[in-house]
């Protein structure tokens, strides 16, 4: 049967690999191509690579780096960062990347998803929503942000996710800004809001510190993508850089515990 995907998320900053906390304090991890090689050996389910500079700097995707990543990567690859046109998305897919992730460009213009899906197929189009709790004493609920948290959009994440699905997204990634890098577990309240809402696959990111956190999310949400950054690049309380990934047996344990099979 289909099982949840366990997905390392790699952030690219100044051509290097970094890990952030709350979208800030990026710590250098190493060379992205080297990390891909290690995840090949560890047989990771899928890789999510996000360039966190491109949108903020207003530059187009780094095609040179994407080409090198795609040539090296022997698992499904999803790339995001700076994609704003149909041509860019098509070029990335042609380079051997299974899925292209978009965020700010499609939040401001959902019909871009339709145009891209018409060219590369819906299965290759992913919408990423960076979500954070609204701040203020009398406020509650969540809001969307882009540009590494610098730009806020006052819209409801669930309504927006539905809209992006209907526009042509083949997968929705929900990334918790508040939980990012703290390794205290996913924002389960946030995830719960999406239960039974979408027809396309979903992936959650932000907060994972252990495989138990993944089990927790999959027990509530079923077959979803379980993405994590810190868990797969840090070891121990001093956050020493060490790339790791669960064995097949550990993965199957997470899945069977969560789905009670």
């Amino acid at each position, binding site marked *: 049967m289909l099982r949840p995907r366990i997905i390392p998320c790699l952030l690219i900053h100044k051509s290097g690999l970094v890990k952030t906390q709350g979208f800030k304090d990026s710590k250098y991890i190493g060379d992205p191509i080297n990390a891909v090689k290690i995840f090949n050996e560890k047989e990771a389910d899928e890789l999510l690579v996000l360039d966190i500079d491109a949108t903020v700097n207003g530059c187009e995707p780094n095609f040179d780096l994407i080409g090198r990543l795609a040539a090296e990567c*022997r698992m499904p690859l999803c790339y995001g960062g700076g994609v704003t046109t149909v041509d860019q998305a098509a070029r990335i897919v042609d380079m051997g990347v299974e899925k292209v992730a978009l965020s700010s460009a499609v939040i401001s213009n959902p019909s871009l998803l339709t145009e891209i899906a018409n060219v590369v197929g819906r299965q290759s189009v992913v919408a990423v929503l960076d979500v954070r709790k609204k701040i203020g004493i009398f406020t509650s609920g969540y809001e969307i942000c882009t540009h590494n948290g610098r730009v806020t959009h006052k819209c409801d994440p669930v309504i927006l996710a539905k809209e992006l699905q209907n526009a042509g997204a083949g997968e929705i990634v929900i990334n918790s800004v508040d939980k990012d890098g703290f390794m205290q577990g996913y924002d389960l309240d946030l995830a719960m809001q999406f239960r039974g809402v979408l027809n396309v696959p979903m992936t959650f990111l932000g907060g994972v510190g252990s495989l138990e956190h993944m089990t927790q999310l999959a027990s509530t949400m079923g077959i979803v993508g379980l993405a994590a950054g810190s868990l797969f690049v840090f070891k121990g309380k001093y956050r020493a850089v060490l790339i790791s990934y669960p064995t097949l047996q550990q993965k199957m344990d997470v899945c069977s515990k969560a789905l009670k099979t």
Partner: protein
Amino acid sequence: MIRIVDYGVGNIQAFMAMFKHLGLEAKRADTPESLDRASRLILPGVGHFDHAMKRLNDSGLRTKLEELVIKMKVPLMGVCVGMQMLAEGSEEGILPGLGWVPGRVRSLSSKMNSTCLAMPHMGWNNLQPRGGSKLFSRGFEGLPQFYFLHSYYFDASDKGDVAATAHYGIDFDAVVSRGHIHGIQCHPEKSHHWGKQLLKNFVEL
């Protein structure tokens, strides 16, 4: 020599990387001449069925491909939409397929009673190989896991052609083999040691 048919659709790069990793010589073929002396053929494909068929028909490669596969019996493996193109046609489009393996391509969601399964069918799922399939005859213990990413599936007319099935809402034909012509819905080029073994078996057996 392995030739990967490059008609402008599909992940050629991924196959090149996988064969390089396997230590097997493979080349991209985008002209009829470059298909010459092929001993194995890979027909990749992604996206919309009609788009892929149209690109293949317009590529100038189809006649040569038919000569190699039908007349000279060079083993071919169609992958993802490349598998679906082996069928007579698809519910996704109106263009005829190659018709090399009797069957139709159908929509997964139209066959499902339950609407709670996400579409596309994306992620790692088990293949249930049928006994006697060459592709699984070596190096497979337990239930192999393969990466899937699709919303349509191949429904073989002659169930004797089915080499493996998978389950997502329904049981469907995930791998077909009709003589030297093979099709696989999931992605062996992205399925780690299971995919490697399957490609190795295709090339060596």
